[in-house]
């Protein structure tokens, strides 16, 4: 009984982590909470689907296509719609809400309101301790964790990552240190969208593609981000696994209806007991 919980918890935790880290990174760099994050996530999956079924390109190229399109699109949206008014945080958040609604409607128009099955590339299964697990699920989990690991390496072991961490820490100090903070912000927005695309691909290949998932995954990502603490990048990983495991355990003991109730319960408890989340700062420094 324990092993299936562990396996499902790991798979779900990795999916939550890859789905949320882009949201946290976007907030850390820009100071704007992106309510369209769930839409961008699922759009990442739709872009791969389009590349595979319409453009007929192989899976690795389809993943790169999704990353590039989502990355560039998010960067351009931020540059022209949000950056000029970034001091007006509430207005920016409302604009991202508008983007969520636009993307939901656009997806329905282009792909229909019904769910689309994502192609199965690896139909085989593996048996781990007597539990049968889809190899495709293992592969996307590995991809998600690898993407997070690459992000960690960039942030902590490269000169670019040092400039990004400096800009996140104190933008005015970064400017004084000669860092082109505008360039770094744009690059960081691109990277956050790239990792969001990978999160979307994980969701698409694990569940399915549907416009309904845009708002639902928004809620899941927000729950993980609040548990970790807004602006905390690496707190996302333990928070995602905590939520993943609690979701799996809750579903087993209370039933499937508990899945999304779990997220709301976690948000309420964390905000009451520790409003800054497990790893968040109590206030953001400009």
């Amino acid at each position, binding site marked *: 009984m324990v092993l299936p919980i562990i396996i499902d918890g790991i798979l779900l935790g990795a999916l939550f982590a890859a789905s949320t880290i882009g949201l946290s990174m976007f907030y850390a760099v820009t100071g704007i909470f992106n309510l369209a994050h769930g839409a961008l996530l699922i759009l990442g999956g739709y872009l791969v689907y389009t590349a595979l079924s319409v453009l007929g390109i192989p899976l690795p190229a389809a993943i790169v296509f999704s990353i590039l399109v989502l990355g560039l699109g998010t960067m351009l949206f931020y540059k022209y719609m949000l950056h000029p008014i970034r001091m007006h945080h509430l207005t920016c958040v409302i604009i991202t809400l508008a983007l969520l609604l636009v993307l939901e409607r656009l997806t329905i128009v282009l792909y229909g309101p019904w769910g689309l099955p994502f192609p199965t590339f690896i139909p085989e299964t593996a048996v781990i301790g007597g539990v049968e697990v889809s190899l495709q699920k293992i592969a996307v989990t590995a991809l998600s964790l690898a993407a997070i690991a690459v992000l960690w390496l960039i942030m902590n072991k490269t*000169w670019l990552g040092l400039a990004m*961490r400096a800009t996140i820490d104190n933008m*005015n100090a970064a400017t004084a240190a000669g860092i082109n903070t505008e360039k770094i912000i744009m690059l960081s927005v691109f990277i956050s969208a790239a990792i969001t695309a990978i999160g979307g691909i994980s969701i698409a290949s694990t569940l399915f593609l549907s416009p309904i998932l845009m708002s639902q995954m928004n809620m899941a990502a927000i729950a993980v981000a609040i548990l970790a603490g807004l602006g905390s990048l690496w707190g996302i990983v333990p928070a995602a696994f905590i939520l993943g495991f609690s979701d799996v355990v809750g579903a087993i003991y209370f039933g499937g209806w508990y899945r999304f109730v779990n997220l709301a319960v976690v948000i309420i408890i964390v905000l009451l007991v520790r409003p800054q989340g497990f790893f968040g700062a109590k206030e953001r420094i400009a």
Partner: protein
Amino acid sequence: MSLLKVENATKRFGGNVAVNSMSLEVNEGEIVGIIGPNGSGKTTLLNLINGIIQLDSGAIYLRGKPIHNKKPHQLVRLGIGRTFQITRVFRELTVLENMLSTVETGKSGKNNLVENALKLLELVGLSDKLDARAGTLSGGQQKLLELARTLMLNPTLLLLDEPFAGVHPKIVMKLSELILDMRKKGKTFLIISHDIHTISWLSDRLVVMNEGRKVAEGSPEQIKQDREVVRAYLGV
């Protein structure tokens, strides 16, 4: 030719004229102090010089070339370094990472970067704090780190905003010695300070601001006897 020339600089914030037709020249190798009551426009002037805010009118020249439309990171590459009244270090980064964050400017080759950082940290007495998070340092140590980080950029002109404020006299002495040492190496300083005693013995020349304007300029001895200065500070 002067190193820095500010010509009739004016900056308004709504109805408030923070800097009003301010003119100033700084020659190479000089230490010029800027003093004046609170709200006289001193920090706004520095913000205009290093591009944080833009002029409403007037001009600023560095070695005869206009710089008033340039962004702060561009001015760093042209040789202007700046420290702030409220110290701006990267609190979550280590002391060494704070120093290495200047790599973007390309002022030090990446191979020399660590070597230069260690030398400067030795100079300011922080070489035993390499792996400490900058946010855990004392206020005085953060000021030393900010100055060391600015020196990593190898600036020609350093703009220091209240470097002596709120720190122990020993740190004041250390900062002063560092400034004089750097001046011998050819650096030029424009320093805002309320510490009249320190800025007077450190500076070649003092500029006094009040209500956004220059009200007096001269040697520290001349300034101490200037009636306009007394009026500006005491309101009599």
